[in-house]
């Protein structure tokens, strides 16, 4: 066996050498379209994610207009939406479709594929000192499965019956019966097909990320010397690998219920006085299967940003990360716990109250590792020599949003309080702060921080500041008032609420939220302009503009296929030697051996090889 292995590795090397020679000769198609280079695939995911974020944001602006100005008419939208705004009034079923698609797009297409797809692909090989992913081909397939899923989901927006409308959680029986609402017709079918392809894409990508982290680390890069970004991407991929197949199972059973007459989730239903043939199904079963994915999914969204933010904060505070091992331990803890708390989404589904208290207990435990992380970020910032780059501002704001969103999670995790708060705007406020805004802020931080490595140029800082402050202020202006409405019992997903006297007092507040939401949507134009302008005209970047320690900054400004023109770098130290006493500079990259830094070495620090 061992002899075969060695010969196999030599082959791998020869292949890499070939890449160096011929990567200039690649055709446009293999270089930019069907590329197997992880950096190009990362950019493909980033562009697709930006595209979807614009769509998802547009949808939310549309339904915020309805919520904020229920009496107004929107005739000016008719050229865009046609019969969905007949007489200037948004169609109620279209409103449901907007909410559903906003959730689906943001959770899966932007914050899962756009976030993990971009940064896991880009950073895992670069920060580990690998030439590429374990399987470039599977990586390419991962993007193109995602592309196919995107095309189908995008197409469903233009169906005559509209896209899926049963909520992003697609609970049956609503989603399973085409006669229930227009959004459960063809739109729902396409939603399920698209999601099935999406899951395949995520599994192909995730399998690659895990394999690369386990097997392709460069010499010296032990697991305990890996940057926290890699740890977070690794755990994200593990969560995806374990959770997405379960969603696939649930989606498959739902497809059978919809199209093949089975009754997994459907039981004794009357539609318009007619009894359906389905009998014996259990809709709560779907909720169990869905949330077994659904809860890890929120950590799939937030974990990568934990890593990104840790990296950006420590670099820009010019201090080692506080509690490196505690950071890893808390991420491990959160990952494990994420699989045993799913039923806190189902406290009011009629489940056994005793079971509810078990899930409540487990849910509240998540506060502990989350608090450890927050404490460590704050302790890293404490007395740091802080550079307020746009990426750093977004990272610090991430910590703020994570605290304010996380604290309400403790309230919602109580099964008794959830009776009042379930399906109100309190829930909307909670998860938009903690996994919506926070994850977006982490993603922005990542884009601003690694833009120089992606495109060889810098983004404009001043535009970045403008973008940051408007986004940050508006995020709180939108979601803080929502808590207040939610405690008052204001229900989510309602098309109109002016019929209820209780809620008419919230008219002004709703208008206020809508104005803030639409303002922040347009503020993203600063980012978009900055992003696309800087790709072509930005200031040229140096190799290591942030004076960072991790390996991606040891590559050339525009790394080619294979990342390092010469041999792969060797790692001697952890990635967080910032402001080390005795060192001439305030950073020591991971590939600098201890033998070259005698003045700053601690007594136990010497090269291991």
């Amino acid at each position, binding site marked *: 066996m061992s002899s*075969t292995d060695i010969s*196999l590795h030599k082959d791998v090397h020869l292949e890499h050498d070939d890449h160096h020679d011929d990567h200039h000769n690649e055709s446009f198609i293999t270089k930019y379209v069907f590329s197997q280079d992880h950096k190009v695939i990362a950019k493909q995911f980033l562009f697709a994610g930006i595209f979807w974020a614009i769509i998802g944001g547009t949808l939310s602006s549309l339904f915020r207009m309805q919520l904020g100005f229920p009496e107004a008419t929107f005739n000016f939208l008719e050229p865009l939406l046609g019969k969905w705004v007949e007489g200037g009034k948004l169609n109620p079923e279209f409103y449901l479709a907007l909410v559903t698609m906003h959730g689906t797009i943001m959770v899966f297409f932007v914050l899962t594929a756009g976030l993990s797809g971009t940064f896991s692909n880009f950073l895992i090989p670069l920060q580990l000192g690998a030439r590429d992913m374990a399987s470039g081909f599977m990586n390419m397939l991962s993007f193109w499965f995602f592309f196919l899923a995107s095309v189908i989901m995008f197409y469903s927006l233009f169906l005559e019956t509209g896209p899926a409308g049963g909520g992003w959680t697609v609970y049956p029986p609503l989603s399973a019966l085409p006669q229930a609402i227009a959004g459960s017709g063809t739109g729902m079918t396409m939603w399920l097909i698209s999601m099935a392809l999406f899951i395949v894409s995520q599994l192909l990508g995730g399998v690659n990320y895990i*394999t690369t982290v386990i097997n392709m680390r460069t010499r010296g890069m032990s697991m305990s010397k890996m940057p926290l970004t890699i740890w977070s991407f690794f755990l994200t991929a593990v969560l995806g690998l374990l959770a997405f197949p379960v969603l696939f199972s649930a989606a498959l059973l739902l497809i059978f219920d919809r199209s093949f007459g*089975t009754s997994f989730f459907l039981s004794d239903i009357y539609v318009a006085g007619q009894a359906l*043939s389905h009998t014996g199904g259990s809709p709560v079963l779907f909720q169990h299967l869905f949330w077994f994915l659904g809860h890890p999914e929120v950590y799939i969204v937030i974990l990568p940003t934990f890593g990104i933010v840790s990296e950006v904060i420590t670099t820009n505070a010019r201090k080692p990360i506080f509690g490196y091992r505690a950071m890893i331990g808390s991420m491990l803890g959160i990952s494990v716990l994420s699989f045993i708390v799913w039923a806190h989404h189902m406290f009011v589904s009629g489940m056994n109250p005793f079971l509810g208290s078990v899930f409540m207990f487990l849910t509240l435990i998540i506060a502990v590792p989350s608090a450890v992380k927050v404490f460590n970020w704050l302790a890293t910032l404490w007395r740091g020599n802080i550079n307020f780059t746009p990426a750093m501002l977004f990272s610090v704001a991430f910590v703020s949003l994570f605290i304010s969103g996380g604290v309400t999670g403790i309230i919602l995790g109580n099964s008794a309080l959830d009776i009042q708060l379930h399906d109100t705007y309190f829930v909307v406020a909670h998860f938009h702060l903690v996994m919506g805004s926070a994850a977006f802020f982490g993603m922005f931080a990542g884009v601003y921080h690694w833009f120089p490595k992606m495109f060889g140029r810098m983004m404009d800082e001043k535009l970045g500041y403008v973008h940051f402050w408007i986004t940050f202020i508006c995020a709180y202006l939108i979601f803080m008032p929502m808590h207040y409405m939610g405690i008052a019992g204001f229900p989510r997903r309602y098309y109109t609420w002016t019929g209820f006297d209780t809620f008419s007092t919230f008219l002004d507040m709703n208008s206020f939220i809508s104005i803030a939401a639409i303002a922040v949507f347009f503020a993203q134009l600063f980012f978009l302009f900055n992003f696309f302008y800087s790709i072509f005209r930005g200031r040229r970047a140096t190799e290591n503009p942030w004076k960072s320690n991790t390996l991606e900054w040891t590559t050339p400004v525009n790394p080619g296929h294979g990342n390092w023109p010469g041999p792969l770098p060797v790692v001697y130290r952890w990635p967080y030697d910032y402001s080390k006493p005795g060192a001439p500079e305030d950073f020591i990259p991971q590939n600098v051996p201890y033998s070259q830094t005698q003045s700053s070495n601690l007594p136990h620090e010497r090269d291991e090889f």
Partner: protein
Amino acid sequence: MVANTEIQTEHRRVNPLKFILWLLIVSILMMFAAFTSAYIVRREEGNWLEYDLPSVLLINTFILILSSVFMQWAYVSAKKDNIKNVRLGLILTFIAGTAFLIGQWEGWAELVRNNVFFGGSTSNPAGSFLYVLTGVHAFHLVTGLIFLIIVVISALRYRVHSKNLTRIELCTIYWHFLGALWIYLYIFLTLNH
């Protein structure tokens, strides 16, 4: 520092492709974990049709175990560079695998004869679950057969031998997994009937 650099691949522990295969196996396992736990949860709720498992399933189980034996024999022969036996073993595996699929089809026919249907007004989730479990397993077995064909073709071209074991090794792992998965499903169904 530079002198050290090219040793890096040596400490790569497992063949990455093999690792990828194991991860894919984990994801398939999670799918079936979801199906079988859904089965248990649903069964606890009552309104559950009790019926006899098709008797042919037991025969199919033995056929699939036999195919795994053939596969292992082919793999061991490849290690010993006995190309003839590799081919024979792989082809026997393929035949046994196909026989298993035909047997599963016969199992479905038996269910239909006993009025246990996948869908429709007379169906019960109890029956539908059996179709889903066997159907999704059969789908994965088809992917295994496709993998087998690829290995058979490379064996016919003398590309499977002791110095080039990766492909047949991966195929063997996958095939054994599919067999083990079926044995799990069969025991699960027998215990929950």
